[in-house]
């Protein structure tokens, strides 16, 4: 591995990453002289971006539904068609992905949704608050 490659890795980890050590294994799997970090890191970053956008879209979609007079709880299955309508088919999220986003919002350290234990949820924060909570949580971890 060249020094320039290692420097690129440092910069990636510092500015764009970090990624997990299991992902960093990709840097060692191909034999030979490595002059740059693997392009596969971009795939992981795109996935990160996809899930961040999902969180934002889920929150905005529910908020918009509330503003239009929704007064009942929602499930992941109900949110999916609302997301498709809102995105006009440009972005597709699976029901599983939406459920994962809701699980994250329901995490006790975030408390972004209230769950009545019947898979129906009510969103109780907006995305600006979520962003602030995540920063607070990150600072407490770090």
């Amino acid at each position, binding site marked *: 591995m060249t020094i320039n490659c290692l420097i690129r890795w440092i910069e990636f*980890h510092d500015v764009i990453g970090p990624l997990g050590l299991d*992902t960093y294994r990709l840097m060692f799997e191909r034999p030979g002289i490595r002059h740059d970090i693997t392009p596969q890191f971009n795939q992981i970053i795109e996935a990160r971006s996809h899930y961040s956008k999902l969180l934002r879209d889920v929150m905005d979609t529910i908020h918009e539904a509330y503003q239009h007079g929704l007064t009942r709880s929602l499930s992941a299955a109900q949110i999916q068609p609302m997301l498709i309508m809102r995105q006009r088919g440009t972005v597709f999220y699976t029901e599983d992905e939406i459920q994962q986003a809701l699980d994250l919002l329901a995490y006790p350290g975030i408390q972004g949704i209230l769950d009545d234990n019947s898979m129906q949820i009510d969103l109780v924060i907006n995305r600006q608050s979520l962003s602030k909570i995540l920063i607070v949580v990150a600072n407490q971890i770090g």
Partner: protein
Amino acid sequence: MFANYLAHLEQPSRNGSTAHNIAAPEYETPKIDTSKNSPLAAHLITELQKASNDTESPRRMELAVAEVFRFLGFHTQHLGKSGEGDVLISANLGSRSYKIIADAKSRQDGKLKTLDGDTLEGHRQKENAEYSLVVAQSFSGGGKIIDTANR
């Protein structure tokens, strides 16, 4: 979520290659705004560059490489004695753990012209590491060094 995504990338295909090997050419290497480097990253980069030319103190390069991999999240152990690698780098991930034995090479002109594959393999086996890593400013010496690296 990421674990699932990564598992998908690494899923072997029918011909024995992996999904990420096939998908890789579709992606360019990531673009990075280096003006956003933290002071620690900037320090590591400067030290790495200087150490790679400092032949009076090979230990400096070994310590720089150890520090860099610690920054990247690995556990590192500086070895550096005769008959062993320079830095043992460990990713302690339970059942997914792996180890790398690294040799850090400093050269006045920055060019590493030879690689002793048998020695590297000996170091790797001694530490029971999955991977061998040689870090140098650049590699030259034609096909022989490439062949050794490919092994």
